[in-house]
């Protein structure tokens, strides 16, 4: 398998011989899975293919030329920053080109105006350290500090650190995109100057075609540069401590502190989220899945299960813990003030402070999200959404009940309620539901649960994050738009008429549902007989996946 040889030679002339390959071993090295996000799922097995070639551009101009060559040779491509995001970051057709962005690692910091400008090869932990050294911090996506900041913000971008500036869109400032036809489009103030400070810029805010609540997973061009908002922190650089696997950031005692509180009830946890926001103090407040505590304590997979199997539905239902971070942004006095406000709130709600390590193991700079896979080997988040508190609190019980039907193959979690937290200084809630399984099981149930959860949200009128590119577009589009599927497909037609940018997204999950027999019963929403692909894509789909 390989891409068109003329296209290969033309791309080689752009990136240099050392930065393109179609060697079968290299292509195998880029395969999707079988471990990782959505590992072993039907989606991955049915939809992903080995790449035909991989190239590594260095500059925006390189990317532009590569994309133009792809357009000339009708060559499908997928942008790939670190490739951590599972099958969704990998080719879905035979002989596709992976455009690996890792050599694009320019980084600039404007400490005075609190923003950075990065290319997609830069990951969060790098940025965070640079920010710390300038008294700032960046909101690292919960997926971990090992992800590309650009890719994360294009698609997701939430974290417990979203308490202050939550909406990812608001942290994306000026940026540069190479559209699927090779045209460079600059967003925000970059459109008419070299200063990327404004995300909005003049005219309509183009960020709307970049992402809605979630992003388009690379199916509408390639972001080559992004300015990202950073937030004021405090002056002391957290100290790195310990030897692997016991490494953490030592937090400056009088300026940053995580505190765990035991609370009397679920309601009191919910109230704490709202009240802390109202009081406008703190850096984060969150209630995480109970089994994460067991992951944090366990030194290996087996120990995790030793700990977790001691739990019961009752013990989990009666375990109320809220985790809060306070930051002395301006002074130690302000830190003390925040601490006092926080303890007043907690005391009023009947909570008690527990001893908490004076360190950060996860959210600031770490990549311990990899530990998600410790328990079962396979994982995906089926929902993450910023919504009203009211809605965010309701999602836990909804998911818990639906999940019961799919356990097994999903992991026994004692009916845990998932993860919620407060964003935008208490103006928004956040809800995330994560599922785990062993990919060596029959995983059809996992595939079904994924889509069933979207159907549940449609039924309940809940606004889920995983719309468009992550879920079947013909399910979510009519239900939420009623026409947003038409809007996305219309954009696709205008900007990517040949469907070369990561096809068949945004219809990949629709394709999966019609190609996987075990999805047929659950896929009961109307879909057109033919998907609106250009003929060239229809042929490629048939070649890669067979006729429908």
């Amino acid at each position, binding site marked *: 398998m390989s891409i068109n040889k003329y296209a290969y030679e033309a791309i080689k002339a752009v990136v240099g011989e050392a930065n393109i390959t179609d060697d079968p*071993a290299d292509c195998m090295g880029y395969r999707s899975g*079988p471990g990782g996000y959505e590992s072993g799922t039907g989606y991955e097995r049915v939809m992903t293919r080995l790449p035909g070639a991989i190239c590594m551009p260095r500059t925006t101009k390189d990317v532009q030329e590569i994309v133009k060559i792809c357009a000339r040779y009708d060559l499908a491509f997928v942008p790939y920053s670190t490739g951590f995001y599972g099958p969704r970051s990998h080719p879905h057709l035979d002989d596709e080109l992976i455009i690996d962005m890792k050599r694009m690692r320019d980084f600039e910091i404007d400490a005075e105006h609190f923003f950075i400008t990065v290319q997609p090869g830069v990951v969060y*932990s790098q940025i965070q350290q640079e920010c710390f050294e300038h008294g700032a911090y960046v909101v690292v996506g919960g997926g971990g500090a090992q992800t590309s900041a650009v890719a994360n913000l294009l698609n997701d971008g939430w974290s417990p650190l979203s308490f202050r500036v939550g909406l990812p869109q608001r942290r994306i400032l000026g940026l540069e995109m190479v559209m699927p036809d090779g045209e460079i489009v600059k967003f925000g103030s970059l459109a008419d100057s070299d200063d990327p400070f404004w995300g909005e810029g003049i005219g309509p805010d183009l960020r709307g075609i970049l992402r809605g609540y979630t992003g388009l997973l690379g199916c509408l061009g390639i972001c080559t540069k992004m300015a990202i908002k950073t937030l004021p922190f405090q002056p002391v650089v957290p100290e790195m401590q310990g030897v692997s696997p016991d490494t953490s950031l030592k937090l400056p005692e009088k300026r940053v502190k995580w505190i765990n509180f035991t609370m009397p009830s679920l309601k009191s946890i919910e109230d704490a989220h709202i009240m802390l926001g109202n009081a406008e103090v703190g850096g984060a407040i969150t209630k995480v899945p109970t089994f994460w505590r067991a992951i944090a304590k366990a030194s290996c997979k087996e120990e995790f299960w030793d700990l977790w199997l001691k739990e019961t539905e009752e013990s989990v239902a009666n375990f109320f813990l809220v985790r809060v971070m306070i930051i002395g942004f301006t002074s130690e006095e302000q830190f003390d003030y925040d601490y006092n406000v926080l303890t007043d709130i907690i005391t009023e709600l009947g909570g008690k402070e527990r001893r908490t390590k004076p360190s950060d193991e996860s959210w600031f700079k770490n990549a311990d*999200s990899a530990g998600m896979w410790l328990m079962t080997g396979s994982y995906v988040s089926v929902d993450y959404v910023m919504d009203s508190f009211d809605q965010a609190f309701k999602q836990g019980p909804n998911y818990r009940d639906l999940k019961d039907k799919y356990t097994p193959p999903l992991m026994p979690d004692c009916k845990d309620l998932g993860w919620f937290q407060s964003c935008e200084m208490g103006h928004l809630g956040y809800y995330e539901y994560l599922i785990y399984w062993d990919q060596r099981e029959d995983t059809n149930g996992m595939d079904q649960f994924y889509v069933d959860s979207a159907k549940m949200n449609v039924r309940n009128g809940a606004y889920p994050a995983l719309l468009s590119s992550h879920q079947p577009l013909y399910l979510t589009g009519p239900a939420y738009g009623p026409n947003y599927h038409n809007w996305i497909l219309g954009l696709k037609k205008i900007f990517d008429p040949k469907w070369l940018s990561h096809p068949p997204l945004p219809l990949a999950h629709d394709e999966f549902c019609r190609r996987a027999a075990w999805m047929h019963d659950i896929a009961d929403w109307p879909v057109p007989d033919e998907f609106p692909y250009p003929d060239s894509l229809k042929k490629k789909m048939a070649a890669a996946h067979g006729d429908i």
Partner: protein
Amino acid sequence: MSVIDKNHTDRYDTPEEPFALDINDLGNFRYDMQHCIKCKGCYWVDHTYMPGVHHSVRCPSNLWKEFDSYCAAGKMRIGLGMLDGKVEWSDHLLEIIYACTLCGACDVGCKRNLDLEVDLTLEAMRVRAVKEGAGPLPVHKDIIKKIEKTGNCYGASADRNGWMDADVNPAEKADIIYFVGCSSSYVNQSVPKAITKVLQSADVPYMLMKDETCCGNIPFSVGDLDTAKKIAEANIAKVKESGARVLMTGCAECYRMWKVDYPKLLGIRTDELGFEVKHFIEVADEALAEGKLKLTEPVNRRITYHDSCNVSKTCDPWEPYEGKRGWMGCIEPRLDRRRGKSGLYDQSRELINAVPGIDFAEMPRKKENALCCGGGRGAKQAFPEMAENAARDRIEEVKFVGAGTVVSACPWCLSNFSETAARDGEKIDVLDIAELLAMAVK
């Protein structure tokens, strides 16, 4: 009722799979290869220790060629492809497999969060290459022949004890037997001279091995287990014959061979060798703690320390393992996984900081996050550009912290750094830790 019972155990049908930590069969690591999550903890420095946008990579192989296939994440996928007959042997595949120093950085990085056996998988891929007649590379075969013919990996016919001068006074009988190694015997003779000087100044008796030969590092590392096993058996017999309680090396590669890979080859635990394996820095550090080693002469330099891989992330003791994997991937019996916690990090720093006059600077990538110099495990012999590239990157880091001297605990690092610095016209000094200590004793 347990959670599993409540959740219908009978409906989970997880297979039970037997496996062993045995690199003779790549199939033992199928689960590990299938569960690599592409987080690239094997490529980046531990994110907690991430120093910023520079000096952020820990894999010398992927630093050299940036395609994912050169980092452990890619190699795990390729290994699975090998197992399933989906990749064919080619020169390029051999480059991917062998242009890697088996430095262990990926293994500790991965085991920061997960339980996957990365290092063993990489070793097993090489063993498979040899078994299928594709490996090792011609240059490795040549080295193996030289070892068989001359007992050293250079094929040198000179006396292995040629480094000994009149000042070297080994005991006839001692608890410690000093295994000098090929590099120190032939190329970096200043190292054994310094080691023996330091030991003698601290009154630590040592003996030398009669008819010492190569430790077998390169045959083992390139996957020729038969040759390596023969060497291991012969060498172990010599130590037993000597009656020594401690086998001491001054070379990190030899250290790992004796401590980890000999037991691995023989299917025994490290503590079943019948003697202890120590690196010189452990012996010197103990002498320092006991007040026997007196470092009195000032060495007025700004120096930094490079943690050689095989006295840091790869040297946890070995324990053979056979068991079964079942429910959610849990294994039985339990296994204390080797996460690279036994690194000799404190010993080396205690020694360096005990030298008067030293202005010590840590590099951003330190301890288990140190970037391999690129010189070990037969990789440099086959891919000198990869080795130079790694050394060059590390030398940049030495300069970044303003040090004029870089110290390590392995003659292979010494060679690779010095050769690269000389080639690039870099004005830095490269020293073995023994040489530094030797400057500080009277």
